[in-house]
């Protein structure tokens, strides 16, 4: 069995293991072991990938495995990775690993919780390794549907409403996507030899007729964009994130929203570059609205999870914004931002979950002075906050800097004005992050109940330290990551630039 398929097999085996045992402790241990193994495997994959590249293997995708599935429709189970997918797989395994520990204390239907959580992870891993649009779509839907149960059963607040809203909006997006993918498929053979294909690499060798691109690019881009919280389709995100249980918020904001950015890049822009070039302006406007509106939205929220959800809208909007800039620097920045935001928002949601578990409130004005009581969690929160507002030395700075430098490279007025508008989000981000830190952590302890709160337990520390370590690692040594991404960005850029030289 090849290494990539293992990324789907291990979660499935873990689920089987969980089904077979009944003891809650064993369920936790199996989940942690399975996802720990997955993290290890991701490490091995990064190592193998880098050594292959070092050995001079410059194929577009490595570790390709292609099995014919539905022969008459030319549907394959095809997997392969380039630097970007390797980075995303690494991100996913980190977040899932941390998520398992963050939900260590789930006591209601524990078994079912971990099964759904790992099923969700299976979908995400499968999505990132696929190079066949059919398998990709299958894994995408597989990742969305466990969300309904995860939020509906283990969530808080108006969970039934949020779960239904999120599921229907995301499935609505996947409906658009389905039409778009069928459109790509039936236009994947311009010679009309009836050899249609879903394989991304094969489609990238030809150009889909421009008339078809104009119809299907918006469908695919919006289909993925909804998942990436593209304005005005972002409304599922605040409700969904705030109602979801901790690990699900982490996974969802950290990883699932990245499916949107990754898909928009890999499918919409890569396969339909001409239409992307023509129509980018519409989506650039929409994404800059996301960026600024999300940040402003975060300022006025009182609930910690809502603040973070709106901040995710803003940051993920930046990912799509950078992808649409379609030059090397900005797109590198987009991938860096996906990874940076994934880690940092997962950290945020994990910490919020831990705080909520202690204070039983998420409203910032009901809390105060927590720094003295629970220093470990508070310091972690500050680090997450600083990463989010782009402090140098942490991952957020590298990503946002790259994006804005790249975006400003466009010589024309439109792109530059939009970049300036988007840059303003940095300031707004600082406002809401510092406001939360000030009210929440500093000052006197306002509520006497909070004076004896226990600090982080061992499993919470594992979860937090894993994420903080990764955030700092990217912030301090971004080069190896951006080289890995940059190398894989070349085929995409070549395809874009031969058509539309700026």
């Amino acid at each position, binding site marked *: 069995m090849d290494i990539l398929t293992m990324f789907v097999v291990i979660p499935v085996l873990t689920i089987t293991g969980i089904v077979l045992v009944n003891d809650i402790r064993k369920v936790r241990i199996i989940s942690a072991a399975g996802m720990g193994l997955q993290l290890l495997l991701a490490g091995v994959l990064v190592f193998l990938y880098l050594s292959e590249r070092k050995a001079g293997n410059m194929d577009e995708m490595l570790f390709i495995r292609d099995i014919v599935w539905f022969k008459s*429709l030319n*549907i394959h189970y095809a997997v392969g990775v380039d630097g970007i997918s390797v980075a995303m797989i690494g991100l996913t395994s980190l977040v899932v690993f941390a998520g398992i520990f963050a939900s260590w204390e789930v006591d209601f239907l524990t078994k079912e919780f971990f099964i759904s959580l790992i099923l969700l992870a299976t979908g995400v891993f499968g999505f990132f390794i696929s190079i066949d649009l059919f398998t990709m779509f299958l894994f995408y839907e597989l990742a969305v549907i466990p969300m309904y149960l995860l939020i509906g*059963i283990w969530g808080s607040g108006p969970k*039934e409403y949020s779960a239904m809203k999120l599921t229907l909006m995301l499935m609505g997006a996947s409906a658009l996507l389905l039409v778009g993918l069928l459109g790509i498929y039936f236009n994947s053979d311009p010679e009309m030899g009836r050899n249609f294909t879903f394989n991304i690499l094969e489609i990238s060798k030809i150009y889909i007729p421009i008339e078809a691109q104009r119809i299907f690019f918006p469908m695919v881009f919006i289909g993925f964009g909804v998942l990436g919280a593209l304005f005005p389709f972002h409304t599922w995100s605040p409700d969904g994130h705030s109602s979801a249980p901790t690990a699900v918020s982490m996974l969802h904001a950290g990883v699932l929203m990245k499916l949107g950015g990754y898909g928009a890049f890999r499918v919409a822009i890569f396969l339909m570059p001409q239409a992307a070039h023509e129509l980018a302006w519409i989506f650039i406007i929409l994404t800059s609205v996301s960026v600024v509106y999300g940040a402003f939205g975060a300022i006025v929220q009182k609930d910690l999870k809502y603040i973070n959800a709106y901040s995710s809208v803003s940051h993920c909007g930046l990912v799509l914004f950078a992808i649409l800039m379609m030059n090397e620097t900005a797109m590198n920045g987009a991938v860096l931002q996906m990874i940076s935001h994934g880690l940092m928002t997962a950290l945020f949601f994990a910490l919020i979950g831990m705080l909520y578990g202690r204070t039983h409130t998420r409203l910032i004005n009901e809390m105060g002075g927590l720094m003295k009581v629970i220093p470990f969690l508070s310091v972690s929160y500050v680090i997450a906050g600083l990463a989010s507002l782009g402090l140098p030395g942490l991952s957020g700075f590298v990503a946002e800097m790259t994006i804005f430098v790249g975006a400003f490279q466009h010589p024309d007025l439109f792109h530059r004005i939009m970049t300036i508008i988007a840059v303003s989000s940095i300031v707004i981000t600082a406002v809401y992050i510092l406001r939360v830190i000030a009210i929440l952590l500093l000052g006197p302890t306002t509520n006497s109940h909070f004076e004896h709160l226990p600090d982080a337990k061992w499993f919470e520390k594992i979860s937090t330290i894993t994420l903080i370590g990764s955030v700092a690692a990217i912030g301090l040594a971004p080069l190896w990551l951006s080289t890995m991404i940059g190398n894989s960005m070349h085929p995409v850029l070549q395809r874009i630039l031969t058509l539309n030289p700026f």
Partner: protein
Amino acid sequence: MNLQDFSIMRHELLLTAAAIIVLTAEIFWNPAKKRSITLFAIVIFALITAAGFIPASNGNLFGGMFISTPIRVMMKNILNLGVLIIMIQSVTWLNKEENFDKISEYFILIISTLAGMSFMISAGHFLMFYIGLELATIPVAALAAFERYKNKSAEAGIKLILISALSSGILLYGLSMIYGTTGSLYINEVSRYFSGYNLQILAFIFFFTGMAFKISIVPFHLWTADVYEGAPVNITSFLSVISKGAAIFILIILLFSVFPVIIETWQKTILVTSILTMTIGNLFAIRQQNLKRFLAFSSISQAGYIMLGIIGGSQLGMATVVYYILVYIFSNLGAFGVVAAISNATGKENIDDYNGLYRTNPNLSLIMTLALFSLAGIPPVAGFFGKFFLFAAAAKEGFYFLVVIAVFNTIISLYYYLLVVKAIFINKSEAPVEKFKSDFPTKFALLLCVAGIFITGFASFIFEVIRNYSFGV
């Protein structure tokens, strides 16, 4: 009749023989052990189903009255398989006290209606088609009224027979026009003389309307919910899966073999009816409380999706329709199997009654969820593959507009399927369905459905086999 002729029409002959065997066996059966006749009948039918899958020669019989081609044999096999599952599901219900003296009637009726469907599918002549259609319809009405001491069941039987008579009348009127304009009732001759002038288009409209009643396509669906609700659950599942499947099979065969000349006309007809059927079926399903009515409207909308495979008029579409019906049989029978199990054990049939079901009956809950997800087209279960291929078949012929409407309809349908999932997993209840143990036949039938829901999707060879057979009606 030599052996080869026998093998050509083996489905029909074996089914007729089975009906007669069960009928005579009942006379000699020890009345005290009458329940064991269920096992006898099911074993015979299982053997027939298995015999259907044995590869055998194809050809025409009776001077072209009877046509057998690989795809038609495949259709019959699929129907047989579905009926086999329904029979196993019905055992619990048949063992009830009030059905004690009617066990063999059930089998005779259900086998003869299946024989009618087989004749209909193999028809090479409109007369044969019509006889098969009637043989397929009338016993079903008797089955719908099987619990005749219940008003609703009797009402369902009457409604079904009246609607069937009406639709047959309309259909026959269409057939008479076909005969009048072409001078023949042989399907291959009709297609040769069919040129598509106005009277023939009128004939087509009447024919299509008649079939639309059987498939319950909007606006000819009004009988569906009442009949489905009134009939016993196991008969409802037969109506929604087998009757509908057979009618769709024959519709697609005749559209492809008799009416290819007026393809533009029937594409328009199907475009409009398909949109109506999907949308109205889905919108009405949202408000249903009774699960049988709920599944009735869901099955109406499913027929709308199936139209997407027909509309292209392509061989790919044909294959996807047959494949989808197979997937649909497993999914819908899974859902109906759970409804029947709970209804037989507790008499509860409303969505509200399912609140908190997962706490008391986790296995049934999971099967129901899988079946509903398959109906909604969620991976990794088979419904996803079925829907994807249907949409692909329509998109291939350029009906992107229809595909867009269909995919948004799947979102509406996902909403109401999730309402049931929500009731099962999320809602809390003071008095949930109490824990109960299902008997072996129920479990076995549900296991078959679950296996089918997974295998028909992942195992691509099933689709490939159907696809290879789909060349040439």
